[in-house]
C-alpha cells in the first residue's frame, strides 16, 4: 500500500458508501452484509463499486465482485489496489 493507510482508506470507503447507499455511517462495519444489513441489492453494490472506483481512482472488474457479500470483502478488493 502506498500513500494511504488502511484506516484512512476505510474512512473514505465509508463516506462513499454513506452517500451511495444512504445508510448511517455506523452501520458500515467490516462484517456488515450488503443485502441483510445495508438493504443494498446487487445493482446497488455495482453502483457503490463504481463510486469507489472514482473515489480511489482504481479499476474493479465485474468478475472480482463475484461472491462479495460483506463490506469487508469489498474493502479488501479496494485496499489491495491502493
Amino acid at each position: 500500500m502506498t500513500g494511504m493507510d488502511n484506516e484512512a482508506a476505510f474512512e473514505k470507503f465509508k463516506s462513499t458508501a454513506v452517500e451511495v447507499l444512504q445508510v448511517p455511517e455506523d452501520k458500515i462495519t467490516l462484517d456488515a452484509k450488503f443485502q441483510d444489513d445495508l438493504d443494498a441489492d446487487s445493482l446497488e453494490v455495482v453502483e457503490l463499486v463504481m463510486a469507489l472506483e472514482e473515489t480511489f481512482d482504481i479499476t474493479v472488474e465485474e468478475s472480482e465482485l463475484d461472491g462479495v457479500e460483506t463490506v469487508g470483502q469489498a474493502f479488501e478488493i479496494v485496499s489491495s489496489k491502493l
Partner: protein
Amino acid sequence: MTPPAPVRRRVVVTGLGVVACCGIGTDAFWSGLFGPAPVGERRVRDFDPSPFLDVKAARRADRFQQFAVASAQMAVDDAGDIGVDPMRAGVVHGTGVGGLQTLEDQVGVLNERGPRRVSPFLVPMIMGNAGAAAISMRFGWKGPCETIVTACAAGTQSVGAALRLVSSGRCDAMITGGAEAAITRIGVAAFTNMTALSTSGISRPFDVERDGFVIGEGGAALVLEELEHARARGAHIYAELLGAASTADAHHITAPSPGGAGALACMELALDDSGISPAEVAHINAHGTSTPLNDLAEAEAIEKLFGQDGPVVTSIKGITGHSLGAAGAIEAVASCLTIEHKSIPPTVGLERLDPEMHINVAMGDAAELPGGAVLSNSFGFGGHNGCIVLAPLES
C-alpha cells in the same frame, strides 16, 4: 350459435391523485384549471418527491416514475381502505416515453466518461413500465400490471384497459393513470423540429391563432372499483366509468385521419360501449392540444357526431399544456372533478374560436354541468385513439 353475452360489471371511480403544473393534489389542481395560464413550458415546478420516496428511492426513480408513484399514493389515500384481494387488484399505467431525462443524462455519462460509468439503474429507470411496476410493488397488488405506450393516447387508453379488467370480472380494483416527464433538452428539440410545439408558448386550443402545443408534464391516477365492492365499504364514488373505446386511424404516423374519421369512430364506439346516445352526453373534455391539425380534426368529428349545438366542449390544455402520455389520465381526473363539482372549467387561452369549427366550446367563466355523461378524448401520434365515458352514479 351466438356466444353468451359476457359478464359486464359496473365500475366506479373511488380515488383520485394528480401531479400537474397547475396544482398537486385534486383541490389545488381543480382551482388551477381556472387560470391564469402561464406562458411557455408547463413544468411542475414545486414537485417534491420526498413525501413519497426516500432519498435513495427517489434517486433511483426517473421523474416520470416519481410522478406515477406520487399520484398513485394520493389516489389510494383518497380511496380509503380498499381491502381488496391482491390477486384481484392490478395496475394499468400509461406513458409516452418513460424515463427520458435519465436516458439523456446517461448518454452524457457514456460520451464523457465511458461505458463503465453508465448507471446500473439505467434500465429500470428508463423502461416505460417503471411507473406501473413501482405502483404494484408499493401497494402489493399482484394482479395484471401492464403499461400502455401509445403516445398521447396512453393515459386514456390505460383507464379504458383497467375498466375492462374490472368489468370483465378479472379484477375488483385497479390503479390506473399515466405519467410523463419529457421536458428535457432532447424531448423539446425533437418536438420543436417536428414543428409540433407552439412558437408563441401560448396554449390556445381551438383558437384561430393556435400554433402548436405547449409541452407539459405530470401524472395522474384513478382508483377504479367494481360498484358493489365500493358500495359495500361505503366508499366515496366520484363517478361511474360507463365505457371506453380504443381504435387506430391506420392512416399516418403523426397526422390525424382526414375529417377526424378516426376520432369520430372512437367516440361512437365509446358511446356504444357505454350504452348511451350522443344526446345523453353533457360535456366533452377534448384532446384539444392547440395544434392546427388535431383541433380541426377533433372539432369536425365532434360536429359530425353531436351536431353544431352539441355538448359543451373544453380543453384543459390551455392551462396544463400537453403532458403526452399523462394527459389522458390528468383529463380523466379533471372529468371526475367536473362531475363532482358540477362545473365545467373553461378553455383557458381560447379567445377567438376558429371559424371553421362549429362546436360549443367553453370560454370565459366556468359553465354549470348539466345532467348527463362526460366524454374524454385522447389521440396520439401513431394514430391511436382513446375515449372514455364517465357519468354521475345513478342507482
